[in-house]
C-alpha cells in the first residue's frame, strides 16, 4: 500500500520515536517482520520432530527436490490449467448473468433470493454431489472452480450495472443514442470497474475451489500432491507446496488488485 505517501500522522503510536521516520522506518519494519518470521521458522523447525515441522532451510531443499524431480512443475501445470479455464468460464457467465439480471428487473426480483442462498452455500459441500454426478477428472474440477468464482463476479456486475446513474442514461437517450450505443458507451464502461472488483474476489475464491477440488476429484495438481505428502508424513514437502500455493495466492491477489485499480480510475464514486 502507499504507506509512505500518507500524511505523517502526529505521534499515533503514543511512544517516543527513536528510529528514523518515513521510508526508512517503513522498510525497517517490513524487513524486521521478514527476518523475525524466517528466524522463528528455522528455530521452531530445529526444535521439533521432523514429521511436525521442519526448518526453513530443509523446506527450501524439499522445494528444490520437488522442482528437480518434476512433480511440482507438473502439479502446477495441471492445477493452473484447471484454474484458468474455470476462472474464464466463471467471469464470462458471471458478467453476462449479472448484466442480464441488472437490466431485467423481473428476472432479478424473481431469482434474487435463490442467488443469495447459492452465494451463501459453502461450495465445498457440493463437491461430493459433483463427484457422483460427473465423476473425476479435468472438467469436474473446472466446474468446482467456476462454482466458487461465479457468484462474486455475478454480484458485483449486477450491483454495478444496477447503480448506473439515471442522468447518464437520460443524457444518452436525449441524444438519441441507440440501444447498442447505450451499452457500448454507458452500461459496459460503467460496469467494468465493478466487474473487476468481482474478478479480484473470484480469483481468490477460485483458488480455494481449485485446491478443494483437487483434494477429492483427481490424481494430479497441488491439492492431491498435498494429500499424498500428508499420508507420507513428509512435512518438509508439504510446507514447500504450501509455500508455493501461498506465493501464487499473493501474486494473484496483487494482479487482481492491480487490474481493479486500473479500472477503478474511471469508477464513478457514489
Amino acid at each position, binding site marked *: 500500500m502507499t504507506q509512505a505517501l500518507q500524511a505523517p500522522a502526529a505521534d499515533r503510536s503514543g511512544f517516543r520515536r527513536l528510529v528514523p521516520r518515513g521510508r526508512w522506518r517503513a522498510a525497517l519494519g517490513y524487513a524486521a517482520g521478514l527476518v523475525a518470521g524466517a528466524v522463528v521458522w528455522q528455530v521452531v523447525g530445529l526444535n521439533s520432530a521432523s514429521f511436525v515441522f521442519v526448518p526453513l532451510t530443509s523446506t527450501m531443499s524439499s522445494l528444490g527436490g520437488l522442482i528437480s524431480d518434476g512433480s511440482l512443475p507438473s502439479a502446477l501445470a495441471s492445477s493452473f490449467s484447471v484454474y484458468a479455464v474455470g476462472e474464464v468460464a466463471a467471469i464470462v457467465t458471471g458478467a453476462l448473468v449479472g448484466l442480464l439480471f441488472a437490466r431485467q428487473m423481473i428476472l432479478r426480483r424473481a431469482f434474487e433470493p435463490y442467488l443469495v*442462498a447459492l452465494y451463501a452455500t459453502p461450495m465445498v459441500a457440493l463437491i461430493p454431489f459433483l463427484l457422483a454426478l460427473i465423476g473425476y477428472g479435468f472438467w469436474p474440477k473446472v466446474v468446482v472452480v467456476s462454482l466458487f468464482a461465479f457468484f462474486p463476479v455475478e454480484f458485483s456486475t449486477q450491483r454495478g450495472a444496477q447503480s448506473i446513474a439515471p442522468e447518464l442514461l437520460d443524457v444518452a437517450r436525449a441524444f438519441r443514442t441507440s440501444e447498442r450505443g447505450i451499452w457500448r458507451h454507458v452500461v459496459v464502461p460503467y460496469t467494468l470497474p465493478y466487474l473487476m472488483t468481482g474478478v479480484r474476489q473470484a480469483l481468490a475464491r477460485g483458488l480455494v475451489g481449485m485446491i478443494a477440488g483437487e483434494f477429492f476429484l483427481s490424481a494430479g495438481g497441488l491439492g492431491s500432491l498435498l494429500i499424498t505428502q500428508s499420508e507420507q508424513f513428509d512435512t518438509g514437502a508439504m510446507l514447500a507446496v504450501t509455500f508455493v500455493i501461498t506465493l501464487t495466492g499473493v501474486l494473484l491477489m496483487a494482479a487482481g488488485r492491480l487490474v481493479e485499480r486500473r479500472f477503478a480510475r474511471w469508477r464513478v464514486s457514489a
Partner: protein
Amino acid sequence: MAGERMNALTLNRRGGRARNSPDAGGAAPEAESRRERVQVLLARIIAGLALLVIWQVCAVTFAPSYIARPIGILAQIPSVVGSEQFLSATGSTLLAVIEGLAIAIVLGTAAGLVMGRLRDIDRALRLYVDSFYAMPIVALVPLLTVWFGYSPTARLVVVVMEAVLPVAFSVAEGGRTLATEFTDVARAYRAPWWRVWLGIALPASMPYLLSGVDLAIGRALVGAVVAEFIASLNGLGYFILFNVRSFHEDAAMVALIVLVVFALVLRGLVTLTVRRALPWYRAR
C-alpha cells in the same frame, strides 16, 4: 471496502433505492406499493417452483436414480431430521463454527487493533496477514491434520484460521482510518492510551469488525466442511460425504440445506447487529 458499501445506497434507474448488496436479500425498494410487493413475492414463488420442477424433471429423465431430486429430499426431511446421527452431526459442526468464530473475533479484533494503531507492528505483521489472507487456508488442512490428528481440534483450528484473517484485516483497516479529530480531542484531554484504544478505536472499528465477520462466516463454514471431509470427523460435511458415497443423496441434501440456512442466519444476525447496534453507521 467502505467505498463498495456506499454504492449500495446509490439511486437506481427506477427511482427507488438500489438495495442490491448480497445481504439485502428480500428487501424491495421502499417506495413500493403493497400490490407490487405481492407481485414480487409471486414472481419469487413461481421462479422457485420452476427451478424445482426443472431439477426434478432433469433428474428423473437424465440422471441415475440415486441423484438427489426435490421430491426425494422433501420425503427424506422427517426421517433425516429425526435421526440421532444427523442431530449430532449438526450440533458438532455448528458448535465448532460458532466456537471458532468467537475465538476468531477476539483474536482478530485484538490483532487488528494493534495493527491498525501501531504502524511498526503493522509493517512487521502485514506480510503474514496479507499472504495468509491471499492463500486458500484449506491448503493447510492436510498439514493441520498431521499436527492435531484427525480430531475436532484440527477442525477448530482450521475454522479459526479461516475466520481470523478477514476480521483482523478489516479491524486493522478500521483502526488505520480512525478520524484524527477523535484522537486529537482525546490527546487534548490527556486521555490515557487505554481509553483511546477501548473508548475510541474499538467502537470506531465495530462496523469494520462486523464486515469482517460477514466474510468470516462463509470462510469458516468452508473450512469446517473441508476439515470434516479430510479428517472424517463427525459433522455435516462428513454426513454429506458419507451419504453421497452410500447413494443417499437426498439425505445429504438435507444436510446441505442446513448448512446454507445456518450461513444465512448468521449473516442475517450480522446485518441486524449493524442496524440495531450501530445506527450511526449508515453505509448499509
